[in-house]
């Protein structure tokens, strides 16, 4: 399997997955996932329901532990430490620290409904990373301006549309200064007319050089924003390569079939 890399550009890997496996009981959800995402790269992950896409993202954030292989983000082994040839699970305190390396954006936004928009964006840096409040507030307002919600800072999530909520969720992830942004189907729960505004924000982030892994069914977005596209089937990356070539001339039969199915 080629990785679709230009190995001469000298950029470092931000995210590395090596032979990652994960089971829930007797279901093997991840069966040896290998993946490298470089700095400033945008990777879109496509695949059928149940392929393990969400699980992979959750493992990168260590919301789920893994059963085999290893994951590195920004050079740190996520969730474990190597001692005596074994990977021992880290104490919670260190895991919490590592979670700040990746910023998650969920399908259902998961904003905190009892906090205002601004509080949602500020709460992580202020209460969890213990940064000075004034500094965080300036940054948070900046990000909210960026996603076009500068005038909604004191609204509560319930007063916003789905598209606006998802943009707040993106600002909340950005405020943590993560090394990589992980999107899990960020537009699948949205009404069709607001999908565009969220994708526009994501495209901007892609263009300014953020490292992003985006699980999505939006092939149009993948074509426009992604450097590379990966296809996941049955807990494995089945095909990965430059967006254009994978989307237009997939090598795997399954990939072609899936694309034909999605593009109808």
């Amino acid at each position, binding site marked *: 399997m080629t990785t679709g890399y230009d190995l001469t550009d000298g950029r470092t890997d931000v995210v590395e997955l090596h032979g990652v496996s994960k089971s829930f009981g007797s279901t093997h959800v991840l069966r040896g996932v290998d993946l490298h995402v470089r700095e400033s790269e945008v990777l879109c992950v496509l695949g059928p329901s149940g392929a393990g896409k969400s699980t992979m993202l959750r493992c990168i954030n260590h919301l789920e532990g893994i059963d085999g292989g290893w994951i590195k983000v920004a050079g740190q082994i996520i969730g474990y430490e190597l001692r005596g040839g074994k990977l021992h699970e880290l104490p919670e305190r260190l895991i919490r620290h590592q979670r*700040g390396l990746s910023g998650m954006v969920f399908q259902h936004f998961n904003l905190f409904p*009892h906090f205002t928009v601004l509080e949602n964006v500020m709460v992580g840096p202020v*209460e*969890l*990373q213990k940064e000075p409040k004034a500094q965080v507030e300036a940054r948070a307002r900046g990000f909210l301006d960026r996603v076009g919600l500068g005038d909604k800072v004191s609204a509560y999530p*319930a007063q916003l549309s789905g598209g606006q909520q998802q943009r707040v969720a993106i600002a909340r992830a950005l405020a943590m200064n993560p090394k990589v942004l992980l999107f899990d189907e960020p537009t699948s729960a949205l009404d069709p007319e607001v999908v565009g505004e969220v994708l526009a924000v994501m495209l901007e982030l892609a263009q300014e050089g953020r490292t992003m892994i985006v699980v999505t069914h939006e092939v149009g977005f993948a074509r426009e924003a992604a450097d590379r596209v990966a296809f996941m089937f049955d807990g494995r990356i089945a095909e990965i390569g430059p967006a254009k070539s994978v989307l237009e001339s997939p090598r795997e039969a399954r990939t072609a079939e899936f694309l034909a199915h999605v593009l109808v």
Partner: protein
Amino acid sequence: MTTEMAPTSSGSPALSETATYEIVRRKHPWRVVAAVLVLVVLGLLAFGVANAKGLHWSVTGHYLLTRVVFYGFLRTLELTAAAMALGLCLGVIFGIMRLSHNPVLSSVAWLYVWAFRGTPLIVQLFMWFNLALIFPHVDLFGLVHLTTVKVMSPFLAALLAFGINEGAYMSEIIRGGLMSVPPGQTEASLSLGASRGWTMRRVVLPQALRVILPTIGNETLGMLKLTSLAAFISFNELFGTVETIYYSNSQVMELLIVAAVWYLFASSVLSIGQYYLERRVGRGFVRGGRKQTLLETVLVNAWAKRRRLGANW
């Protein structure tokens, strides 16, 4: 008139396309009759009570504002507050334990609820009060040595009985509240690098509280009245106090009314307090801008009702 009402061939009267018709709502004469009837009965009842030969309203009026009754009332409030506080603490602890993945913790929580919810409160009250019968002395790791009879005052016995019993109910209420918060909330919090404790305190509990609070309000009202059971272990709260008085002066009904008035007063105040507390905890869950005040709510509801009744009055 008659021509307009005449049925057409299709069975319904013809409607003119040029005329505009006034809509006349259906009258509800029986509602008026029922209301008058109920009011008459109520009036007779009130008249009967007010003029009851054996009832001396002046006695009720006198005792309503005596110091000794007021102190009894304060002890009722004190016991209610203390028991609810204890119940709430135990409820949070056991409610969270019940949801724990650790089977020992969740089983112990289940056992607690099973035991204290499954036996009558009055039995528990007497057991606490008589604890000295089986544990004459309390030894805490050899550091503290206590004589149970001296320590187990009526107040403490009542507090333990009511608080621990309340905790059993409360833990179920809190468990339900915690389960009503979507798991995505915990996930989002953890993904920001929060600890389980922070997530519980800042994310899950505040949202659960919105669901739990109305029930806690009801529980507090219930506790206010339940504390009267403490009279049976000679704790002089409101009911115990009036009881003591009518044992000596035989003005039974007069003094029971005194107690009833104070209980009604306290529960009314509690209901208003509950309203404001719920409004505060409801932050972020009300669509639109400013929230209504209590008075506004009452007026708006009354107005809406009047409009619904429409043409009738």
